[in-house]
């Protein structure tokens, strides 16, 4: 690139290079215009808004750090953060483990691989809104399939989404249903592990369990880390299913962070406070991404 810069400077008269450069900038005009209008501008404005009080009807009033101070003392903010963290840190590892286990099973030269793959993957194709209605029916206390089946074996099932103790757990169970998405990624990674490594491990006397931990998991760890990170980032922003099924209840047992942000922005019209919440979310997601990248440096094996 550096030599190119020099070349370019020395030969401004070279029509070829000038045309190339002009085409490059022209091709970027739509994106850059969009970036300024829809990304850079809003980002700066949002940061400023987070230091103001703004109810849309009157112009924003700067209040310094008040929003952030209020946020630290807001018990509901902490409750929503706790719920989101529990949901994320429990459901994502479970989802990764289940998806990986499915991929390992399908990687044993099973008959009808593509049919099995479809069976496990298909729930991930269901729109989240449809699965929200489906699951609120399945886990309905009186009429839901789950409790009806439990009743047949003489267990009286809990009130699932309607119970403060069970609601968050039920969302975690619901999220396991879409583990097949990760499975597809792991399956591709597993198929990329060279068989020579397994042969070598067998010759060294490693049993199946040892082969799994010494060969399979390290060789597929980049895929595992990637899906884990995407999963954490995504689940921290969970909104739709919670909004439709419980709207945060019962007694805030499933109040999630983004739902709380939405309430402040669009129910209470506190755009300043909601902006502060958004920036805290940004900081959290940034921190989590950074952390998992740091940890991965030690744990994840990359082929050079």
């Amino acid at each position, binding site marked *: 690139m550096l030599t190119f810069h020099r070349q370019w400077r020395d030969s401004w008269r070279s029509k070829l290079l000038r045309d190339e450069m002009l085409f490059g900038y022209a091709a970027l005009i739509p994106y850059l215009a969009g970036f300024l209008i829809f990304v850079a501008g809003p980002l700066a404005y949002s940061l400023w*808004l987070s230091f103001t009080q703004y109810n849309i009807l009157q112009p924003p009033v700067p209040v310094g750090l008040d929003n952030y101070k209020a946020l630290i003392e807001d018990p509901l903010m902490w409750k929503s953060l706790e719920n989101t963290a529990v949901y994320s840190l429990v459901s994502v590892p479970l989802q990764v483990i289940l998806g990986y286990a499915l991929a390992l099973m399908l990687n044993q030269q099973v008959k009808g691989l593509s049919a*099995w793959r479809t069976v496990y993957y298909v729930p991930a194709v269901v729109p*989240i809104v449809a699965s929200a209605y489906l699951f609120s*029916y399945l886990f309905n206390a009186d009429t839901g399939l789950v409790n009806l089946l439990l009743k047949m074996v003489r267990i009286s099932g809990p009130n699932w989404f309607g119970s403060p103790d069970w609601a968050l757990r039920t969302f975690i169970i619901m999220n396991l249903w879409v583990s097949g998405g990760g499975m597809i990624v792991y399956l591709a990674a597993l198929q990329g592990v060279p068989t020579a490594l397994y042969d070598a491990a067998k010759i060294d006397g490693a049993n199946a369990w040892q082969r799994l931990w010494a060969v399979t998991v390290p060789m597929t760890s980049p895929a595992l880390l990637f899906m884990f990170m995407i999963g954490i980032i995504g689940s921290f922003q969970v909104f739709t299913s919670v909004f439709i099924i419980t709207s945060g209840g019962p007694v805030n047992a499933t109040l999630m962070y983004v739902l709380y942000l939405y309430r402040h922005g669009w129910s209470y019209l506190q*755009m300043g406070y*909601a902006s502060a919440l958004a920036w805290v979310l940004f900081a959290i997601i940034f921190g989590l991404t950074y952390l998992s990248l740091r940890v991965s440096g030690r744990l994840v094996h990359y082929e050079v």
Partner: protein
Amino acid sequence: MSQSVQRSDAELLLGRYAGRVALYFALVGLGIVFVSPLLWLVSSSLKPESQVLAYPPQWIPRPVRFINYAEVMQTFPFWRSAWNTMVIVTGTMVGHLFTCSLTAYAFARIRFPLRDALFVMVLATLMIPYHVYLIPQYLLFRELNWLNSSKPLIVPFLLGQAPFYIFLMRQFFRTIPKEYDDAARIDGSGWFGIYLRILLPLSYPVLGAVAIFTFMAHWNDFLAPLIYLNEPKKQTLAIAIRTWEALRLQAGAKPASWNHIMAVSVLLTLPPMLVFFFAQRYFIQGVVMTGIKG
């Protein structure tokens, strides 16, 4: 090694056989757990109301009431909402397939000062959660009088604001040998011609994946339509269901019964399912390529 030599062949075979049986048992068992919610969805959508609450649960609707769907369509504005959704899906898809690919092409192939710095900027925007833009963008679109129209949900994407797809396509373009470009240039093609006639036709796998995930993401999108589309007439399918329920209650009707809600959910699920089954190969490739789960 010595251990396995000591085992008789019969023992090994038996162990292997038992392992296979256990494997298929696990696959079938888990398969039932994964598929039964979907079967229940479809079966409930065809049941008479009396059977929805039956105990023990009944899997086969008796009688099979396809008329549930017709009943639902009388009050639920399916075609209108589906049309609204398709307008948004089509608009964003045009943006993703053309603007993002053109941007990706510039980053992958054209040499100009500041190119790499700009690309790093694109990557950096990947880190920012959507909710940070949500409020200022809402205020902007409100100022522009774009609320209750599909513009807020289309225009940013027409201007290529999908950094992940730009990244994905740039990476793909870079795997296409540059010799093709040179050959085309010698034959008198310009930069845009190379993009249109060489790179795009060679990029079906990535364009297919982007098209599929654009369809899935915007067919299912909930938060943005919820914020921008308050007027029932303008709403997409994903949010129209909630409005439909709310309007029924407001009108004093009894809440929709589960068989009707399941019928609406099936209607919402059917198009993505069809895309999945008809484009399964691209779909799976796309999941592997992107890590997007569908």
